[in-house]
């Protein structure tokens, strides 16, 4: 269909202002600082969960805000998260068969 494009996509994409992006970047920087601090400060039993949670938060923030996924069409989220969830599931099972998680 080369004829008649409904070209509305661009207006829908603006979910944030530049100031908003900078705020997100500051939060990301702060979390990164916290992550790096685990190298210097002993977090005890919290070490592993804290790092993983911070990783996920950073990941989701970049995807949702910088990549606009939060404001965009659901179809984009479906395509991306389908791949992501499948990757996590399949590779976790794969590592589990090597008894990776019970070392």
């Amino acid at each position, binding site marked *: *269909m*080369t*004829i008649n494009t409904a070209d509305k996509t661009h207006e829908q994409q603006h979910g944030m202002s530049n100031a908003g992006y900078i705020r997100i970047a500051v939060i990301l920087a702060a979390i990164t600082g916290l992550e790096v601090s685990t190298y210097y400060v002993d977090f005890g039993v919290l070490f592993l969960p804290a790092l993983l949670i911070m990783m996920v938060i950073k990941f989701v923030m970049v995807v949702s805000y910088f990549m606009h996924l939060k404001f965009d069409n659901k179809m984009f989220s479906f395509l991306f998260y389908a791949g992501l969830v*499948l990757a996590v599931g*399949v590779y976790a099972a*794969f590592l589990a*068969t*090597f008894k990776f998680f019970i070392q």
Partner: protein
Amino acid sequence: MAIIERPAPTVPAIVTPTTTYGSLKRPVSATGWRSWVFTVDHKKLGIMYGATAMFFFIIGGVEALLIRLQLAAPNGKVLNADLYNQMFTMHATTMVFLFVMPMAAGFANYFVPLQIGARDVAFPRLNAFGFWALLFGGIFLNLAWFLGGAADGGWFMYAPNSGPVFSPSNGVDFWALGLQIAGIASLTGAINLIITVLNMRAPGMSLMKMPIFTWMITVVQFLLLFAIPVITVALFLLSFQRNFGARFFDVAAGADPLLWQHLFWIFGHPEVYVLILPSFGIVSEVLPVFSRKPLFGYPFVVFSGAAIGFVGWGVWAHHMFASGLGPVSVAVFSLTTMAIAVPTGVKIINWTLTMWGGKLWFTTAMKFAIGLIVLFTVGGLSGVTHAVAPSDTQQTDTYYIVAHFHYVLFGGAVLGIFSGFYYWWPKVFGKMLNEKLGSWNFWLMVIGLNLTFGPMHILGLQGQPRRMYQWTEARAGEGFFNLAFWNLIASIGSFVLAVGILMFLINVLITARNPQKAPLDPWNARSLEWMTTNPPKEHNFDVVPTVHHLDDFFHQKYEEDPVTHTMKQVRTAEEIMAEQERNADKHIHMPSPSYWPIVLAFGLPVITFGLIYSHLISVIGGVIVLFAAYGWALESSTAPDSDFETNTPGTGLDKVASNHD
């Protein structure tokens, strides 16, 4: 009302471009070899996919015949052990990656846009690139035959057997890199078709009004989208080990050879469904048409297809039951494997009930479809016996496995493809394949394949291992189950099968020389691809159809009688066509041909060739790729308005068409 029997196909409406993009003028030929090499038309690409796949089918078939010749009698002398290894490796690789996948890609390319009422795919140049990458990748894979020997580690190329120590020739390098190129082709094709289906359906065609073939192809493309990167990783690890000294599968360094098996089968099991689901889609189109009934339980067929696609990700380790995974893993994967038989069974039931009470019309296409139901079920049942891990341990690496996957792949995938040939031939080429020869084709193939693969169940249960290049009289045993007799039968069967396929090729030649054109709607079909000329015009539809029903074409021809509640024909296909022609869209600008897809694709084997022989060649290949990528990026997909003839109001398409007639 003008009854249009078979309107002449119109010639592409492009005139010489005035504007240049990239560094060259656009190709514009509408005829001759240039119109094929630089085309971005999904129909031409579909035909080229089909021709390429057929070519590799014959190569793979000859390899199979050599294998069966070798095993026909004790102490076979046709091939030596080394050549035998190469033969079965390349037979499987060719059939899987260079025949079934491209053939399905060909059907998908040709029919998905037609079935969803679109004029082309979402990314026409990417489509062309995918085809050329596949062709070049396939040629590259087979180059190894002439450069020191082909790959010899079996199609799943288990580590550490694939390492330089056990496979010193360049065969495995060609194999890994060639599949990498074919993988790129599949990935781009998958993205293209997914976006086409999600985004380019005709108005009114919701997902649940989509033809079932398109549905199955969509599931397949999602499987490819997510499975190809896994094999990409595995192939990179293998290439890095062989060419750059990485240690991934080096047991001396503490490597776990199961890493390869896992990665291969995480890809490999979804791949199995990539091979079979397109054929499921084809028979789901063929059965309703020739039973004169709608598909029984359409939503069930859709969702069972999607379920197969999803559960297909959780069963890969059943290929590895004998590798010492441990009882927990084996139990889990055993259960998931049994579970996946359920949605497959749902499909079988739906097909059977589609035929139940229908007015069956036993055309060749229908015979092949019924053949698939029966023979795939045989293969499916032996598959369930593999799901039982203790039984599978007995069967692993025997001919029983060979029997199983040939029943599902030949009895399933290939019969489905042949059903598609006979069903859609008039659509693609405008002529009907000969039904009488088709009958010979069908029966010889079915008898041949049962003679070939049936005895392999016995051979396997008697303990004949796969990939054994010779058997001896002493090991053959005695009585009804002796290996000598059944090996001979299998070999004879393989030649019967080959004659059956030869019948098809003869049929194609005879049909090509037959001047008689096919009628517009030869099968009284149901879906949108039949609502256009045979073969379709370059722009597919004069008017983009608006869809109201599942099987919309059927519902345009037939309406329910309010009194008797039976379907009565209200219009003929010819009338529908004539109406479309009267209301034809003007100013249809199709995507324009381009040099860049083939140039870009050509750069890939140059790079990989260089990786094996000289990195300087790789640099040249890289330059080609970069050059083509820039050309591609700087060229718009559809030539600008100024390149088209200006259509004065009221003339539109007709004028353009008549200019070229």
